[in-house]
């Protein structure tokens, strides 16, 4: 591991004294032109208000609504003739047909708003400029989230546009108690980051903690929510994600209703949810949208396959190299027969197969879709069939690797399944060198690590480690909705009851 020291990236855009707007339009224009030199996408559109007062509209091409500018700003103003009667200020207020028009007093402000996409209106003789709410750019339509699909449940996913994402949340939680505090992070990108929470449900201390951690970030750019995640997580060396990322508005809303805090980032369809526990990573959105009995079954299956995904190859290696007496005779004899021609030790065989599986997975993921299928066919043929026939690997090993691969896909959170998949390799090494003893050591180390982990201050294993039966209603089982009367207990005190008790339906209740 190399000690990584951030160099230079903490340097932010230089911020000199703000320059006030001048009454001379030409001077203002010259200042802005000098700041935005070589910005070919900045458009300057001079015109005359009422045919007399010269004015200048500046906007970024592609970020502003051209049609709206022509129809609602320039056209009405050029036609204007009562300028002298009511004065420029009042005239602008009356005639500019934009939903949002804020007055700016400094040139720096003008540039900032310009870069956000707002057209800036400057007038001769005016000490104020107008930023018009006519920003509009091409954006992706709302689509089904690719990473978290559900058979039953909403099909909407977040997009790269922050405002669409916040509107999706607001459409689900229609309450003024839903707060969305906005922060700007990144010296050059000045990325909008929104901290969403429900006042009175989320612990104020957690909200404060999240905000203060966000405010500490000094970086030149934030391109994805992962940037933020890595800056604010509690243990940067842990392989486990300490914040949940999701592209589903319904997941974010469910988390908000549980008293968690969501962090939305402009340009990223992934919202971050904090604080989370380990069990949050094992819950899929659809658990809550299908019958609770089945969801409980699936959850147990998930925990079981989580163990398989982590341990199966290492158990196989350990038993085959150290504990042959543990295997039932006939099973050991058939394993011995299939391994007879394999030239590698079980450890090498397992590492070989697992690495090639990971390579296949990565190759299939990264390649263009058209080639991806070819890769998987070749991979399946080469690794699965030929390797066994050539006697390079044994058939049981292929089964183990395949089962492990399937098991890792059972973990509903992609990021969590990545960390489990990665931990498999040290486990295999431990198994190959120390046998079951090594595996046990690995598990103990892992449990110790998980227990010491925190997510925004909340213990990671909180719901599993506390002997509070109520907390397990959403961990080991998915209790029916009418019985989940309380929110999960995070830190602090707040409105705990989420629904009225005694709502269990029955045929006697009519």
């Amino acid at each position: 591991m190399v000690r990584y020291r951030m160099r230079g990236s903490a340097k932010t855009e230089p911020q000199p004294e703000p320059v006030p707007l001048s009454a001379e339009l030409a001077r203002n224009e010259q200042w802005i032109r000098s700041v935005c030199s070589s910005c070919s996408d900045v458009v300057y559109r001079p015109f005359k208000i009422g045919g007399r007062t010269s004015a200048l509209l500046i906007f970024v091409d592609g970020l502003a609504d051209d049609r709206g500018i022509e129809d609602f700003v320039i056209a009405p103003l050029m036609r204007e003739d009562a300028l002298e009667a009511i004065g420029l200020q009042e005239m602008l207020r009356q005639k500019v047909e934009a939903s949002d028009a804020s007055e700016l007093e400094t040139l720096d402000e003008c540039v900032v708003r310009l870069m956000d996409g707002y057209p800036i209106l400057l007038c001769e003789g005016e000490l104020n400029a107008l930023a018009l709410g006519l920003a509009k750019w091409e954006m992706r339509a709302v689509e089904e989230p690719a990473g978290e699909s559900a058979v039953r449940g909403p099909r909407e996913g977040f997009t790269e546009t922050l405002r669409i994402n916040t509107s999706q949340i607001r459409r689900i939680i229609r309450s003024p108690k839903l707060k969305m505090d906005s922060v700007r992070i990144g010296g050059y990108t000045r990325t909008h980051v929104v901290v969403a929470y429900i006042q009175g449900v989320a612990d104020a201390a957690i909200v404060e903690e999240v905000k203060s951690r966000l405010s500490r970030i000094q970086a030149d750019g934030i391109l994805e929510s992962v940037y933020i995640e890595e800056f604010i997580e509690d243990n940067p060396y842990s392989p486990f994600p300490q914040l949940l990322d999701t592209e589903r508005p319904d997941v974010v809303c469910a988390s908000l209703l549980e008293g968690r805090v969501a962090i939305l980032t402009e340009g990223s369809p992934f919202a971050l949810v904090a604080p989370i526990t380990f069990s949050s990573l094992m819950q899929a959105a659809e658990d809550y949208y299908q019958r609770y009995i089945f969801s409980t079954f699936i959850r147990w299956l998930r925990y079981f396959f989580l163990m398989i995904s982590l341990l199966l190859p290492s158990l196989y290696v350990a038993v085959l190299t150290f504990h042959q007496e543990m295997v039932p005779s006939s099973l050991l004899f058939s394993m011995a027969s299939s391994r007879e021609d394999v030239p590698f030790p079980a450890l090498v065989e397992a590492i070989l197969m697992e690495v090639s599986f990971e390579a296949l997975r990565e190759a299939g993921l990264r390649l263009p879709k058209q080639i991806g299928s070819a890769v998987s066919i070749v991979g399946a043929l080469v690794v699965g069939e030929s390797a066994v026939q050539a006697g390079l690997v044994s058939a049981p090993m292929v089964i183990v690797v395949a089962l492990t691969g399937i098991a890792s896909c059972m973990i509903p959170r992609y990021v969590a399944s990545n960390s489990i998949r990665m931990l498999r390799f040290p486990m295999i090494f431990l198994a190959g060198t120390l046998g079951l003893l090594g595996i046990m050591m690995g598990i103990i180390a892992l449990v110790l690590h998980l227990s010491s982990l925190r997510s925004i201050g909340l213990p990671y294993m909180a719901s599993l480690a506390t002997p509070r039966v109520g907390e397990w209603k959403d961990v080991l089982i998915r209790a029916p909705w009418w019985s989940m009367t309380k929110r999960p207990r995070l830190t602090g005190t707040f409105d705990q009851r989420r629904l009225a008790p005694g709502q269990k339906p029955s045929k006697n209740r009519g």
Partner: protein
Amino acid sequence: MRTAIGLAAVLAMLAFSTGCWDRKELNDLALVTAAAFDRGAGDSVRVTVQFFIPKTAVTGGGGGGGGGQEQQTATRYEEGENIADALARLQMKVPRKIFWGQCKVFIFSQELARSGIQNHFDLLIRSPQFREHAYMFVSEGQAAAVLDTYPPLERSSASVIRDLTQLDIGIKVTVGELSRQFKSDSHVQMIPMVRILPLGKGKRAIPYESGTAVLKNGRMTGTMSEGVTRGVMWVLNQIREYVVTFENEEGPSRGRVSLRPVKASTKVTPRMVNGSWQVDIFVRTQGDITQNETLENPINPEVLARLEKSFSDEIGERIKQSLREVQRNQKADVVSFAEAFHRKYPKQWEKAKDDWEKIFPEIKVNVRVAARINRPGLVNVPGGVPYDQVNKE
């Protein structure tokens, strides 16, 4: 962070510097399925070991030669001063490390057993490489001959005897169980005997379990037939699933009736009556009719009572016969009466324990059987007999 790196480095070094001291790759092991101990030349002992051959089990290619199955096991033998010595010599002849973790059958030859197995047994119970749950046998002839059979149905002759033992028909004795028997008050051990059952023409033969070897202090003194063994098993409360066939002696229609599965629980109560040693044996047993050769209708309560009487008489007689054999001829306390007396009359036992061999044959045994027939089976009246011939009362 620095400590983390240091720790990781240490762990990595640990992992690679050991050379994985305990590691034994499956390809480098000779999997032993069974071991046989015979008497060698002079005072030596001959150890024969049956290995599993992994190559032949590969079912690849398809088609195959068609003619006859390949042998999946091979045997090797070596003589030595004792078993440990012989095994050390044997390892020199086997290119792979001999692995005992899967060996579940140990066979002593009768010859060796008669001269005593206590000294050999010590290795099996002391060395950690042997399974404590491996089954022990005494072979009628050469023990090695049992391993040299190649059964048609099972993978190896070892698995044949093991599977037969697990059917609970005769007694089963593991290494651990035998160790307990050595420590028992009666100083008597029982080990099941194996014989070789030739399967007609050709060389195919399988070993099977038949009768029991009786050992006193590790030295074989006699054998018990299967019938006597079962009688002993009734007393030892080891009857699990069993078929009992008895003659219906009472009532108008004679004939045999078979019951299965017969279950039993036995209670042995030792008593001292005026200085004489007595044992009460109370057997509670029950079973379902599987075959009825009489013309009786077992659904009739009176008939059923008669059948139950015959059933209980039969069981009582079997137990008494076996005890007679054990007490008079073998003079070996295989039924663990010694333990029962030791528990109930520790003081008297303490005085009498040296004379136990003399006391045991003189013990008066009272056998009481409470037998019950639970179900008459799928039909009530005898199958294959017209209704008018069925005995109606």
